[in-house]
């Protein structure tokens, strides 16, 4: 009599577990992480990201792992979607490597993006096909969380021949030997690297000094403000605080500014006030110094005094500006495509980041590059594609619609991005300048978010946690 329940139970359990694939907290079929449901709306940018580790509640567009902005919250309203000006360019020839003599196929891997970005990429690839008809490119959209998918492919020794390398993960990928050094190809092809903005290109220099990627575009953080609410954009940080204080409580504003509780924006303010994460020789942490601590507390005080709020989960500061909940945000060029398509009625504009106590313009930049894998099956063909897409012709086709901002000074910036491009001249890298930076960012934003959530608003725990993380990352 005791056995019967067990038999029934076991059969039922077996049926259920078999039906549901078993395991897991909810024995529902386990959807692998590859099926990324983009819970955070993203702006259109294949190019750059506001490297906000998911620890920060503000979902900035395309975080460091390069998750797929599947729902194109920012399909750029640019004409690039309709018009592609691809023409056959002049194939370049180097001293001992002539790309026009290469034939075969190459697989290009990129992360999932908005339709507008896919169109721009296809346009650039069309230009490539016209210039180098002997190389066939297979355009692979690496669906899911880009970093995770690529790591899996690296482990299986089957990476694409040329692929996006996010500025955040470049150093990690290089230390793990995933990437092929490109110096040989650059020298043999005579590829001109002199016009690339160092702020972008330096991100892809490995610890051994070799080049592991060529920046394909870049973005800098700028101030974006609602022109109806802010008549004169502030030019210094003091003016910013004054403007925000005056805006507090007016109209429908939830708060004057929307801010990310992390280094993905905070770093710009840190630099602007003479603070720093690392010493000049990049050997020791500097977050625990008077200047840095003061800068962190200044940023914290914005939250404390109600001048800035974090974007709600599932949203980001760009959306908050569009919805009219805030008047000032700090975002990159990706904001333009988003605002043009989703909130075209809002009267807004970019302005340079307000200057801090160092008395000169400062901002941070984000970038992504094309790289070739150490195990890529067709490196020559991959290089042919790479040098075209990062050359003047290819980059022009990629950026002229306003999807991204060029990483070379000899490619003209698309209309409406002057502030962003101007920032590239003096921007410091916002990521990829030290190994293990993601851990440092996480330590900062965890501590910062906790302070804001708990209402204690103290910079000390943030500085302590970040200092420990920097020291740990440097010692690895």
């Amino acid at each position, binding site marked *: 009599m005791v056995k019967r329940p067990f038999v029934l*139970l076991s059969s039922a359990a077996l049926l259920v577990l078999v039906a*549901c694939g078993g395991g897991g907290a909810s024995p529902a*079929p386990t*959807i692998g992480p590859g099926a990324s449901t983009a819970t955070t709306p993203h702006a259109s940018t294949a190019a750059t990201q506001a490297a906000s580790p*998911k620890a920060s509640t503000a979902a900035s567009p395309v975080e460091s792992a390069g998750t797929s902005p599947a729902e194109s919250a920012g399909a750029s309203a640019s004409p690039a979607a309709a018009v592609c000006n691809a023409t056959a360019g002049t194939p370049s020839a180097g001293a001992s490597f002539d790309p026009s003599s290469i034939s075969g196929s190459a697989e290009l891997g990129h992360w999932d993006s908005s339709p507008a970005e896919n169109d721009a990429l296809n346009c650039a690839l069309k230009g490539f096909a016209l210039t180098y008809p002997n190389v066939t490119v297979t355009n692979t959209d690496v669906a899911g969380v880009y970093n995770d998918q690529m*790591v899996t492919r690296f482990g299986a020794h089957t990476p694409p021949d040329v692929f996006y390398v996010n500025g955040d993960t470049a150093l990690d990928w290089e230390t*793990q030997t995933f990437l092929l050094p490109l110096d040989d190809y650059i020298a043999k092809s005579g590829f001109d690297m002199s016009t690339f903005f160092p702020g972008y290109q330096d991100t892809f220099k490995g610890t051994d000094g070799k080049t592991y990627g060529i920046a394909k575009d870049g973005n800098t953080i700028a101030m974006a403000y609602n022109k109806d609410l802010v008549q004169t954009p502030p030019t210094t940080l003091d003016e910013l605080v004054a403007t925000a204080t005056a805006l507090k409580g007016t109209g429908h504003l939830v708060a004057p500014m929307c801010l990310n509780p992390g280094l993905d924006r905070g770093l710009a303010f840190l630099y602007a006030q003479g603070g720093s994460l690392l010493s000049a020789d990049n050997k020791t942490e500097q977050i625990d110094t008077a200047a840095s601590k003061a800068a962190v507390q200044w940023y914290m005080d914005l939250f404390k005094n109600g001048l800035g709020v974090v974007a*709600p989960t599932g949203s980001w500061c760009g959306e908050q500006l569009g919805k009219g909940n805030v008047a000032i945000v700090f975002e990159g060029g990706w904001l333009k495509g988003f605002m043009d398509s989703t909130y075209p009625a809002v009267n807004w504009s970019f302005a340079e980041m307000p200057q801090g106590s160092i008395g000169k313009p400062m901002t941070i930049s984000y970038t992504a590059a094309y790289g070739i894998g150490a195990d890529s099956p067709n490196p020559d063909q991959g290089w042919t594609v790479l040098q075209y897409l990062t050359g003047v012709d290819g980059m022009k086709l990629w950026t002229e619609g306003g999807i991204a901002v060029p990483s070379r000074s000899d490619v003209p910036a698309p209309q409406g991005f002057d502030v962003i491009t101007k920032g590239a001249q003096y921007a410091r890298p916002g990521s990829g300048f030290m190994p293990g930076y993601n851990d440092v960012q996480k330590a900062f934003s*965890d501590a910062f978010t906790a302070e804001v959530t708990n209402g204690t608003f103290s910079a000390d725990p943030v500085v302590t946690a970040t200092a420990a993380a920097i020291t740990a990352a440097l010692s690895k």
Partner: protein
Amino acid sequence: MEPTTQATTPAASGPPSVESKPAGRIGARQEAVAGYSFIAVPMIMFFVLSIATLIYALYISVWNWNIRTGPLNVVGFDNYAKILNNALFQTAVKNTVYYAAIWVPLTMAVGLFLAMIVNQKIRGRSFFRAAFYFPAIASSAAITTLWIFIVAPDGLFNEVRGALGLNGIFSLFGFAANQDWMGNLHTSMNSIIILNTWTTSGTFMLFYLASLQAISTDVYEAAAIDGAGAWQTFRYITFPLLKPGHFFVATVGVIGALQLFDQVYIAGGPAGAPVNSLMTVVLYLYHSLFSDLNPGYAAAVGIVLFVIIFSATLIQRRLFGGEPAW
């Protein structure tokens, strides 16, 4: 025994070997062969996919392993030592145990409640069974995404409770009218618990249903004759008789709870945002592999989790697994 030569004599009726050997033995061997060949394929898959991968993970965990180039150098039990001292791992264990401690009893209670309901002869019983069970078979990714929107600050839940005028009660507990349930480090895990309770209660309901239906109606009739009310019947008859069901459900529940991953990954990303409140042990394993790029360490995390779950199951069996006392 008959000499074997007689066994090979062709027979007019039946296979030759049957004539001379006792029928039970031949049947048993043929049955055994048939049985083994039927289970051969699933058993091979089980050994390869479960046992062999476990052993391989054990092997990987003692190495410093590069994802692309493979093993680099042996580090012995360094990875395990690092894990146990790691603050993030300790947070992950704390969150996971908290989740299991709350979610398992809660879902068992809800599952039992649902099972009691659908066990009665009410109209639409089949419909209700299907409806209660449905969340368990729907995609966990889709459900979690919907849930994130429902509990968003301007989401359905906040709007409905505002419309119903319940905000006063919530503010007594310190919850604002536009509370960000999933984004606040104090409420995010509880939001996941509620989500998973709803999702998995259907499965537990099925388990309990099987148990309930195994209780013979004689017992209930006897109880009715003795004048037991509904609550007394439940408390003194049904609940104790469900002991095998409780044990099974609790064990399966704990094993599943300690492996929480899907929902926290979708809601909080690989870092268990906000502020590590959604970091669980499996998510920490995932984070170690894909973010820290350290397969040896990640394999060690997996082994540690295996030990934890195995011990928990053994303890449960020791404490609750005895035969019910009639």
